[in-house]
């Protein structure tokens, strides 16, 4: 037999999925074409807060091609006008009497083609009575503020929940006893995932009453369960198919009103119904991310030892809490905010409020609020270092959790699995010539030139998660793999996760290649069809490799256990005499006497031992014992045009550690993409609302995504500190760079502006903000 390269762990196997993606042969939801398919478009609210006085359907129904108009009252009759959010709040599918944000779905229009549906939307006449919206989240808590969620009986204010963790009194005492305490307000603005593919679905009910929905979802199985619970349809009569997905980033975890309306339209018309959001609908109504108003303090001794951390945060969730966090953690993993440092005392509290804005609080490539946490701690560390007149690198090196302290119990309750923080930072400093840059900066400052160096030494927390702590709507956050080896030694493996560009078809195959000794091209990976794949919680928060990737390893090892018995039978030895060496079953100590997995697979169907079940397959539902904690150190160097406030990123070095690397090329791609997604909100992206609640970024004209021209050149490097509890030592990496990059940029810019006494600038670092910082204070 020809020996194809195995393509196991650590090999940069070209991505299997790219063959179709780069030739335009991907199969996305909008590629689904069904006979008799109708199209749904949506009338959206022009007001942030208004009563609906009347909906006049006549002109819309008169538009040629328009077949149906669906309102909140229609849905109310079927008890479908409201739906639960993943945080057990409630969200309108369509409003019956009040609109809660500008851009909210108000009426569905179903037509025979997409243009007719849009004409129907344009013809719709709705009478509104605008009300004064609540936009500022701080004012939302004022005693006199209008109560927005009047649908909730007994509600007297706009406060959603309070969550806290840590030792409040002990932290206060420790801060009091600290030689130095600094305090800063940091706003992490509302942003949007803006995946290239917007959200959408095709809903079809077949002649047996079975509902099939092709859906842009990162979590098809969980969505099926939610659909069953909301609609009352039996779960076996629902099939969710998540085909190729053009980017998810957390934005395709929730259920959006348009999906439900499309399903209702399919059920009522008897036709398949397609709904694909346009860009403005996507930007103005789908779940946003971030929007945390953070006030944080840290203390230190005068010789620069960190003492305590206190954080108070206001979370603006829009009109409903539609975050997608694990149920137990309404603020996600925000309490990883002690970061890479061994604080003895810490206290974190978060209050969430309702405002007249779109719902959300989803994790945009941020592992459940870790971006907010890392931004705050890495900014504070820099401010404190400056206050102590210590170099920020030296200050970090002095305070890092040392490698020998792992597994490290953080004061707020996490157990960091492994890390070598100083190793990563020192490597980044060496690559970028940190000492040389500081010298250059001194000279530049003498000439009045603005150059800044910014460090971010982040600790991530990914791979949710252990079932004792992690569930979504009660469903535990395990994930699954089902591996079948065919008689000829080829493999079909199915997973409960769902790739949206991460490269699962390649990396899962590599894990299985390594564990089964079967070359990677003989292994097919399938995900996303709830009728065929095993149940899982899906792909987000960098959880696929820590959970489903581990499930693949365990399933493969179960197969190896059975395979050893078959090999023993073939080699006529006792199963105890078989060992797995060099990707083969071998008689202990006799390298010449061995069987490959392909040999064993053939025997499993043609010559299996008496009394043994035929076949060679295994399923594993993996419940991780702990989270994984990838980390890294990033250094940015910026030059600032003093007159215009324009920032030029001269260099950006990213040293990442995600434990064992399955495919170095894919990891590098994840880092490059993640860094760009960290750069974007640092410099450009932001959703702002005016006082009337008008969204000021309803298209890519104003919601600014960087192009290759703006994006810095990324210099990447790695250190490798395996996870001690993951079966192959791997950690999640999909979000590290997005989480880690922003504070490096802000720290660099604030460092450059040090002569002006600037301590913080909130992202995005727009030119005008830099100009204002320079002009508000005269340089010394």
């Amino acid at each position, binding site marked *: 037999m020809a020996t194809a390269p195995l393509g196991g762990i650590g090999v940069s196997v070209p991505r299997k999925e790219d063959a179709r993606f780069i030739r335009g042969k991907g199969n996305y939801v909008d590629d689904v074409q069904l006979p008799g398919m109708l199209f749904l478009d949506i009338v959206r609210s022009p007001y942030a807060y208004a009563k609906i006085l009347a909906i006049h359907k006549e002109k819309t129904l008169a538009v040629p091609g328009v077949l149906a108009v669906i309102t909140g009252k229609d849905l109310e009759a079927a008890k479908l006008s409201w739906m639960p959010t993943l945080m057990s709040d409630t969200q309108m599918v369509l409003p019956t009497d009040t609109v809660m944000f500008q851009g909210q779905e108000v009426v569905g229009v179903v037509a025979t083609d997409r243009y007719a549906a*849009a004409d129907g939307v*344009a013809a719709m006449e709705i009478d509104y009575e605008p009300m004064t919206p609540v936009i500022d989240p701080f004012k939302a808590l004022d005693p006199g503020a209008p109560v927005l969620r009047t649908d909730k009986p007994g509600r007297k204010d706009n406060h959603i929940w309070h969550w806290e963790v840590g030792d409040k009194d002990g932290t206060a005492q420790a801060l009091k006893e600290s030689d130095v305490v600094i305090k800063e307000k940091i706003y992490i603005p509302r942003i949007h995932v803006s995946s290239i593919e917007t959200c959408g679905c095709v809903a079809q009910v077949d002649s047996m009453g079975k509902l099939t929905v092709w859906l842009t979802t990162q979590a098809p199985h969980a969505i099926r369960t939610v659909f069953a619970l909301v609609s009352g349809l039996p779960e076996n009569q629902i099939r969710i198919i998540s085909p190729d997905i053009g980017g998810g980033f957390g934005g395709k975890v929730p259920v959006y009103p348009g999906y439900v309306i499309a399903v209702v339209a399919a059920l009522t018309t008897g036709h398949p119904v397609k709904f694909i959001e346009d860009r*403005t609908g996507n930007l103005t109504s789908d779940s946003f991310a971030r929007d945390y108003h953070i006030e944080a303090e840290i203390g230190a001794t005068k010789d620069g030892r960190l003492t305590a951390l206190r954080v108070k945060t206001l979370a603006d969730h829009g009109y409903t809490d539609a975050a997608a966090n694990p149920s137990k953690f309404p603020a996600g993993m925000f309490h990883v905010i002690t970061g890479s440092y061994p604080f003895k005392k810490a206290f974190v509290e978060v209050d969430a409020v309702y405002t007249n804005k779109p719902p959300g609080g989803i994790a945009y490539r941020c592992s459940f609020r870790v971006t907010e946490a890392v931004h705050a701690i890495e900014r504070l560390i820099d401010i404190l270092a400056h206050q102590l007149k210590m170099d920020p690198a030296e200050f970090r090196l002095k305070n890092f959790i040392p490698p020998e302290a792992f597994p490290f119990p953080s004061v707020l309750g996490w157990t960091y699995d492994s890390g070598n923080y100083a190793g990563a930072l020192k490597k980044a400093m060496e690559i970028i010539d940190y000492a040389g840059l500081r010298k250059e900066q001194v000279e530049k400052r003498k000439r009045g030139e603005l150059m800044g160096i910014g460090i971010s030494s982040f600790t991530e927390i990914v791979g949710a998660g252990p079932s004792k702590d992690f569930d979504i709507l009660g469903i535990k956050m395990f994930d699954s793999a089902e591996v079948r080896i065919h008689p000829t030694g080829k493999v079909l493996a199915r997973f409960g996760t769902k790739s949206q560009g991460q490269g699962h078809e390649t990396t899962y195959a590599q894990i299985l290649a390594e564990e089964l000794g079967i070359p990677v091209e003989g292994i097919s990976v399938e995900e996303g069809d709830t009728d065929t794949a095993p149940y899982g919680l899906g792909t987000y928060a960098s959880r696929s490799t820590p959970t489903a990737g581990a499930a693949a390893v365990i399933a493969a090892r179960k197969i190896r256990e059975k395979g050893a018995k078959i090999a023993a039978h073939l080699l006529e030895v006792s199963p105890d005499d078989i060992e797995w060496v060099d990707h083969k079953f071998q008689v202990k100590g006799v390298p010449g006497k061995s069987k490959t997995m392909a040999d064993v697979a053939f025997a499993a169907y043609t010559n299996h031992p008496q009394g043994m079940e035929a076949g060679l397959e295994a399923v594993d539902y993996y419940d991780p014992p702990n989270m994984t904690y990838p980390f890294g150190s990033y250094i940015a160097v910026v030059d600032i045009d003093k007159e215009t406030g324009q920032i030029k990123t001269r260099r950006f070095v990213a040293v990442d550690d995600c434990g064992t690397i399955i495919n170095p090329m894919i990891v590098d791609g994840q880092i490059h993409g993640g860094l760009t997604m960290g750069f974007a909100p640092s410099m*450009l992206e932001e959703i702002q609302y005016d006082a009337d609640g008008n969204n000021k970024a309803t298209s890519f*004209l104003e919601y600014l995504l*960087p*192009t290759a021209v703006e994006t810095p050149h990324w210099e990447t490097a790695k250190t490798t500190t395996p996870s001690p509890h993951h079966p192959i030592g791997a950690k999640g990496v999909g979000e590290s760079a997005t989480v880690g990059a922003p504070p490096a940029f802000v720290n660099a810019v604030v460092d450059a502006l040090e002569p002006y006494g600037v301590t913080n600038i909130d992202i995005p670092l*727009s030119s*005008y903000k830099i100009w204002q910082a320079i002009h508000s204070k005269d340089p010394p």
Partner: protein
Amino acid sequence: MYPPNFEYYVPSTVEEAVGLLDQHQGDAKILAGGQSLIAMMKLRLAQPAILVDINRIPNLAYVREDDKFLRIGATTRTAELSRSTIVQARYPILSDAGREIADPIVRNRGTVGGNVSHGDPGNDLPACLLAMGAEFEIHGPKGIRTLPARGFYQDTFVTSVATNEMMTEIRVPRPGAGTGSAYSKMERKVGDFATVGVGARVVVDSSGKILNAGIGLTNVGPTAIYATAASDFLAGKTDSDAVLAQAAVLARDASAPSPDNRGPVDFKKDMVRIWTRRTLRKALDRAKGGK
């Protein structure tokens, strides 16, 4: 993102196009490169009942120079403008601007005539043509008329072209010896409309004295702005940093920007000052033989 129905005409002569515009006055829009119009139609901000597609009218796309003018046909793509070696050699303000308009995809489709006659204060070419003292040839049912760029822009999306007229040629006076020109654009990202754009033209004599100058401003008012006081101030002055700084202040005072996501008014006005000074310097360097 889906426009309503419209009728679509493809005239083969300017006269036919003008006839259609005259027949459907107010209901018809000219479709040239479509880079502004189609986007506005998709958002239903513009809902013309009739589109008059002028792309197949022959001999409307050209860049040529005679002894008086650089002549640019209305359907010349902006990418072609900045690729023209004549433009690069003697009208660098236009090739500068041509490289800054939106992004390459837009520049391959968008036309010079459309950019100039749309009346969007964010379009980059009007400021350059104001600085250069250009003129426009306009065809209407009653014949041809020529209008100077200065005075052409009346308000946002309002120009001196009537609804039954069509711009056919853009003429830029041929520069004499000692002329330098440049365009600078400050933008948040590639493809963005300018935070501020400045076009500058200067003519210097052999002693370095500025004989005359023109300064146009992009996106800092309801229309593209000709900075008259700043331009006039420079005539007869000897080039110095102080003189340019004074002109820059006058240009700043001619601007009337609105606050938006790009920044507040005081910032934008200061950017007019900074970029006027920098662009004048670049134009002067070019006038003296530099790049």
